[in-house]
């Protein structure tokens, strides 16, 4: 869904300015700000990926983060009730509500709170997440570092990191 939003936006407003894009990102990402702040729900992952997609659509500067980047992520809970994948290619991010087979990095997390702690470690919780077995990362660890930057960079643009 998010990718459709992105492609539509890009078709409609190809010449959107960076400042206007930044404004629109803040205007339309209220749910994400809440999820990153104090209104965490089980939809954290979905909202995060939507917010990133929106960011790539509206901000050229944010989109520059994925220039020439190819890589696939799978996010899932241990019981696989929540699963999603994000694939980056051609300066675009495709989100699917199921795990893809060929991933570079697979993140298995206990719950939304654990994933948020892991990705937004403002208070030193990455290690706790790993040590408490709340999050397990398989595959190339550098991909999770890069994803962590993308998430934090989005948070910075939204004023929550």
């Amino acid at each position, binding site marked *: 869904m998010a990718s459709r939003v992105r492609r539509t936006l890009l078709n409609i407003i190809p010449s959107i300015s960076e400042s206007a894009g930044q404004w629109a990102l803040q205007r339309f990402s209220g749910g994400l700000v809440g999820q990153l702040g104090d209104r965490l729900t089980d939809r954290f992952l979905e909202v995060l990926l939507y917010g990133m997609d929106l960011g790539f659509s509206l901000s050229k500067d944010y989109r520059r983060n994925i220039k020439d980047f190819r890589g696939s992520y799978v996010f899932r809970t241990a019981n696989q009730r929540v699963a999603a994948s994000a694939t980056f290619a051609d300066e675009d991010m495709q989100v699917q509500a199921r795990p893809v087979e060929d991933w570079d990095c697979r993140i298995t997390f206990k719950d939304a709170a654990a994933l948020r702690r892991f990705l937004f470690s403002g208070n030193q919780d990455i290690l706790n997440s790993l040590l408490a077995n709340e999050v397990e990362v398989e595959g190339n660890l550098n991909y999770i*570092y890069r994803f962590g930057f993308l998430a934090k960079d989005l948070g910075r643009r939204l004023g929550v990191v």
Partner: protein
Amino acid sequence: MPEISLGDLSLSDYGLSDRVTRLRNIYFKAIPEICIERPRLITRFSIDHGFFKSNRISILDKAGMYRYVLEQRIPVVRHSRGVDGDMQPFAFQDNQLFAGSTTSRLKGVPLYPEFLALTLWPELWTMSRRESNPFHITEADVKTLNFDVFPHWLENNILELGRKRYYDQNLQKYGRKKYDPEIKLLERLVFFLASKPECISHTIPDFSKAVKLGLRAVIDEAREKEAAVDDPSRKEFYAAVREVQEGIISYSRNLAAEAERLASLENDPGRKQELLDIAAIHRQVPEFPARSFREALTTVWICWTAAHLENPNIGLSLGRLDQVLYDAYRRDMDQGRLTVADAIELICCLWLKIGDHVPAVPEASEQLFGGTGSNQAITLGGVDRDGNDAVNDLTYVMLRATELMKLRDPNLNARYYSGVNSKDYLRRLCEVNLKTGATPALHNDRAVIKALTSKGETPEQARDYGVIGCVEPGSNGRFYGHTAAILLNLTSVLELALFNGRHRHTGLDLLISKETGDPRTFDTFEQFTGALEEQIRWIADRSTDLNNFFGKIHQDFYPTPILSSLFEGPMEKGQDLIAGGAAINSSAATIIGLADVADSLSAIEKVVFEEKAVSFGELLEALENNFEGYEALQTLLINPEKTPKYGNDDPKADANVRWLVETLDRVFGEKENYRGGKYRVGYWTMTNHAGFGRLMQAMPNGRKARENFTSGITPVSGVTPSLTKALHSVARQPASCLASGVALNLKYTPEQDREKMLDNFAATVEGYFDDAGGQSDGGMEIQFNIVTHDKLADAVLHPENYPELLVRVSGYTAYFKDLNPQMQKEIIDRTEYLLSTGKMVAFEPFPLPNKR
């Protein structure tokens, strides 16, 4: 044997010069800044030369890259700005006596994307605001790293190159995709840590040739050797040596040119002359032989910056500088060109330069390893290659500089050979400890030399040992032992024996290692130790296999021409250091949790098997419940009068320690590394005993979940009331099994009568080092914190009042305020003794920091 010409060994008439006082204040004011110079240059070169698409990088290719970086990097003669603790820039006028720097910043954080720099990627925007040891970084540098540097290393750092190779290997072997159980074991964090994905380092270069002959002579030697050999790989090696040495010379010439440029702009005659002096020095060295003490120091410093360009700043050590530099010092003194005051000022300036960089520790690792410096050890004193007293005037000059500066880096280590070195020297070492509160660490030559010769080193090589990183002994400039290759959590191995190959941290439904039997079915203590030995063998197999695997990745992707060119062995063999070129090769495991595991064995032996006070089943239940509901059992287990404890001169408890160190030495000693050397074992823990403590559940010695483990080879805190007995227990352990070094951490209460305290201090060290007429080897190493419990507790609450409070961790020194809360607690809780009575001073344990 050098004659000591100093009247007052304390050199108490000499203080910090105005220059050094000012530079020292700036040093403490400045916080670390990320420097992107190195990663930007190596990334550019790697792209241009196709390194990212290559299956192997030759030593000549690497040498070309380092030469390029040395020639391109900014020649910093004078810093002009730093950043303070409020992240505000401040300007200052620099008047250092040494030019050049390891980074482009005043206090820099060099990045090595070939290793683990990418762990900083998620926090590039936030690292300047993190609670623990923040790094300053500019917005432009964040963007450069994010867009132009890090993306190129996604698939190309050592860890991921290794993982890729494991994937391929395991696909062939098991038909499974993305299968890397070997690395997974490492990434579970609780079993062992491996340093190969992080660094090479952990060794001591040989500066003597560069000082005496100059690098031009080394280049000429390499050219001659290259012409004389037919083997293409050896030819390539010598060409690589020439390449990097030309790079180092170019860097020094660039510094000279920059100093001349600055001098031309300078109106102040004094400052102008200082710059011209620097320029003249850099026109001479390191290309040509050092003609003065200052030139000799400059040679060491410039070679040192080059070594750090190639190797991460983790445990790379300077070795026996009082020996390497003594001839130059003596010559200048004899010719009246140098005074003691000049020499102290020069050494102070060098010490500040050595501390011009800190390791890049990500926020998460701060919790396990926070507060560490770069562990650049310097070694003083002891005996020379022939066994003669090697203590000289320069030894005392360096001690005085250390005493005055009270810096974290360099990490000072002093050797002492009882009966050869003077008692005045030992007393002076103790005095510096009293005045700094934490340095130098003291090493017993007799025991260390015995340990090294037991591993095949010649007596001459062993006598010429220097200290690496924390406390690890290695023959100076000729021993590549990667002493921190494996950091093994021994308590996890005990856990595997207690739970039949499983671990509570990873869940008791997951078999981690091998089933060695359910201890509840064991009839004898020996059955349990048999199971433990099997688990030790299992983990030794896994950890050494992984280390050897990554060693081969180093060989293919990380040749080391700079370090190899400053080392005894590679030039003779025409072979890279990491390919086995060093004169002496080994690898090492250092053990975390020795005392906790030994006391657990003693508890099991006494309480379960001898007295049958509880069954093994009940003990395991108590552990799984963290002793809740089993308080009486815990009281029994922690009571040293009821349950034997290491550190009380108790033969049974000490025998369990001995069994462990002999078993570990035997098991690891059977393993061969990727360079044809054998593995050694050490007992020094840095901050890992606190970090691993956080991960581990309750143990049979009565320790509850999340409590700290004990550092190094030190007995468990709070259960060893007598200092003498504690020292006896440690000194009883066989030196031959401790060849990769030990850290014995002691805490003394400062006493009013300093002279009396000094007497007791020196006598205690003598007693600990004594071999009791051959009945024991004597203790190998000892280090101190001399500070009151109250002061440390207050420093936790008011760190702003103690910015320079120096403490010994377990090996290196650190500023107390920089340590994570768990590590601060560990130091506060260490057994504290009053030297005048030799008795423990009792304190309630410091509260465990609140963590989720």
